């Protein structure tokens, strides 16, 4: 057994006295940068924000009585519309499928290209980028912002800060407002908002998403990625030596140091220790320390370094967006191929294709009519005065079409049976039912069988529902059930 040491309580308290209770946030003032990666980032940002703001305004004709918004999640009516697809609540598994596609897509992209999701397309990155752009417009670039931050509360500082936060809140409002459009008819809602005729729930959700946008993009920023987001923690599992990552080529850069123009480059590395890569980093790290958790792979340091390398006349890509294998090969003066096809990428692709095909197939073959047969359990059966046995059933016809459908209900496998429907007065072997458009229609059905024709206490049989009148593409479906009676 190891020896246990007991602390003197007073001494521990003494030790804790001079420790801060929380970590102070290191303020980050990313510098403006221009270059290829930055241009890609702007392009992605414009496309993504464009899609986000424009999508709810797209129209899609679904016929009379149906909403004509291309992308709409209608909570009160319990329907979701995606172009030609209409999802009912019981079909949320399509959402699970969508999430699976998203997950495998992310795995594949990460295995191939590293943290492109984090660096380019994650909403946290996109909106933070947008907010930083506003910040730069109002307060100036890195040096000016640091100066402003350190200065006292002058009129100019108050004005600049107010303007910045004002624009941020406006952007947040637009973000929160646009989110609500996906859950309401966009033109109607905008009209209602302008006339101030909105429901408290709409106001609440606009307020909620406004507040989260303002908080996450204005203040939390890289802390979301570093502390809150689970994705950086386990995405390392998708990386291998052939994934593209942002790294510093230490073999070429070291030993680093300031370089005077015109002096020799012999015996030293290409890194001139200008710290531009640190200055532009939105998460405030030094990429020369190697690949690290905080790095979101945005590649802005590549632009910054390439700019400097061009100016000092050294080859570009000292900070490179490349795979570990290729960088190692280059360090030894060789070249290596970028391997796109690897077991890992094959597996992710196969999974992606499987889920995609399953979802598409199930969407394609999705029945437009769904029938549920529920048999009464209380009572299981009823004995009638003439000795015959009656069972009760509830039949629900779920009609996903926009028109009323007619059906003939038959029973197969019960000799001598007769049927009746609650609310319809005729008792006959054939029953006519109608299914209301875009709704679930419920019928109570009684099936009666002479005592003598029941061979046992449990007789399996089928309900047969066929389109009536016969139309092209009309469906006939069978639904298994059992007829219960007294045991012999």
């Amino acid at each position, binding site marked *: 057994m190891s020896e246990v*040491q007991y602390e003197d309580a007073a001494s521990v308290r003494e*030790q804790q006295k001079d420790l801060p209770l*929380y970590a102070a946030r290191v303020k980050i003032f990313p510098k403006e940068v221009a270059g290829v990666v930055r241009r890609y980032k702007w392009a992605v940002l414009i496309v993504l924000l464009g899609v986000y703001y424009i999508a709810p305004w797209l129209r899609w004709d679904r016929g009379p009585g149906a909403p004509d918004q291309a992308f709409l999640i209608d909570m009160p009516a319990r329907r979701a519309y995606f172009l030609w697809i209409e999802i009912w609540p019981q079909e949320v598994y399509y959402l699970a499928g969508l999430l699976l596609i998203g997950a495998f897509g992310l795995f594949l992209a990460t295995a191939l290209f590293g943290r492109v999701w984090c660096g380019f397309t994650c909403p946290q990155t996109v909106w933070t980028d947008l907010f930083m752009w506003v910040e730069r417009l109002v307060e100036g670039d890195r040096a000016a912002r640091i100066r402003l931050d350190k200065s006292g509360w002058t009129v100019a500082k108050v004005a600049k800060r107010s303007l910045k936060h004002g624009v941020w809140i406006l952007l947040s409002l637009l973000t929160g407002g646009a989110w609500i459009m996906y859950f309401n008819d966009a033109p109607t809602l905008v009209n209602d908002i302008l006339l101030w005729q909105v429901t408290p729930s709409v106001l609440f959700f606009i307020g909620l998403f406004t507040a989260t946008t303002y908080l996450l993009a204005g203040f*939390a920023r890289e802390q979301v990625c570093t502390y809150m987001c689970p994705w950086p923690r386990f995405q390392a599992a998708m990386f291998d030596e052939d994934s593209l990552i942002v790294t510093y080529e230490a073999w070429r850069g070291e030993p680093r140091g300031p370089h005077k123009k015109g002096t020799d480059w012999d015996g030293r590395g290409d890194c001139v220790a200008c710290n531009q890569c640190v200055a532009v980093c939105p998460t405030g790290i030094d990429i020369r320390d190697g690949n690290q958790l905080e790095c979101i792979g945005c590649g802005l340091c590549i632009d910054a370094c390439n700019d400097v390398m061009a100016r000092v006349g050294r080859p570009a890509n000292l900070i490179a967006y490349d795979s570990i294998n290729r960088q190692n090969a280059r360090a030894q003066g060789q070249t290596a191929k970028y391997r796109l096809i690897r077991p890992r990428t094959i597996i992710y692709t196969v999974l992606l294709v499987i889920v995609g095909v399953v979802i598409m197939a199930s969407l394609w073959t999705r029945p437009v009519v769904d029938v549920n047969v529920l048999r009464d359990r209380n009572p299981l059966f*009823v004995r009638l005065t003439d*000795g015959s046995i009656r069972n*009760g059933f509830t039949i629900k016809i779920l009609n996903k079409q926009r028109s009323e459908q007619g059906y003939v209900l038959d029973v197969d496998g019960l000799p001598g049976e007769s049927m009746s429907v609650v*609310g319809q007065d005729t008792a006959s072997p054939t029953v006519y039912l109608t299914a209301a458009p875009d709704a679930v229609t419920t019928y109570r059905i009684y099936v009666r069988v002479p005592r003598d024709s029941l061979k046992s206490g449990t007789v399996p049989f089928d309900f047969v529902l066929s389109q009536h009148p016969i139309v092209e593409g009309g469906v006939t479906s069978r639904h298994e059930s059992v007829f219960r009676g007294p045991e012999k």
Partner: protein
Amino acid sequence: MPTKPEKDAITGTEIRSHEWDGIQEMDNPLPRWWLYVFYASILISIIYMVLYPAIPGITGYTKGILGYTERHALEADLVAHRESQAGFFDRIAAATPAEIREDADLLNFALAGGKSAFADNCAPCHAAGGAGRAGFPNLADDDWLWGGSLDAIQTTLLHGIRWDQDDDTRVSEMPRFLADEILTTEQIADVTQYVLAFVNRADDPAAAARGAPIYAEQCGVCHGAKGEGNQELGSPRLSNDIWQYGGTADLVAAQIGNPQHGVMPSWSGRLDESTIKMLTVYVHSLGGGQ
């Protein structure tokens, strides 16, 4: 043993002096945003305690300045719910059960309302789905004591059966043939065989033959010459195999000798008119409605 705080070589963070199996812990402070969330939670809990009922005492509890109680919230919900159904209730109040059955919307509403009222008020005796139990009639079959038309069901619901407090209640009483010494035990056994013969269940044809004249004299007036029953009097039909108090010879004889009489309360005054109409339509829909 007090020691000087040890620092981690790489980060410079202090290391807590305790150690488990060689594992030591760095004394990293909490992130600031986390602390803010923590403080905000404390603030919210204080605001909550001011606004809402929170702290229990010996005789009561702090009420909170909003005066919120779940009971009032429920009552408000129920009022709002009833208001939303008012249109249906008005239409049902204005319609007869037969008219309700004609209107698909009203029928659906009445069946749902009737089902829930049945579960609350009727199911304790008549069982879920009206399946009935010994002594309490099955409402799902087509054998009715007092009639299975909408009107007859509504009358039974309104006034009850053998319910003293209602002057219009349905009343009938079968004589106690043995207890009042109208028939002997042997005669009752013979009549029992005769009655069981209606459904081909007699096991003593001779006794059944002896019972025929007794039946004609004592029973036929109410139960009909061929045991067809009489819904005017609430006398059960005997010519089918549905038995309220059991269909074995012993139980039939017991019912003749010292009959049990079912009692059902009148529901007018306990349930409103609309609920009774919904119950009428629901019971009628259980399968035996005539």
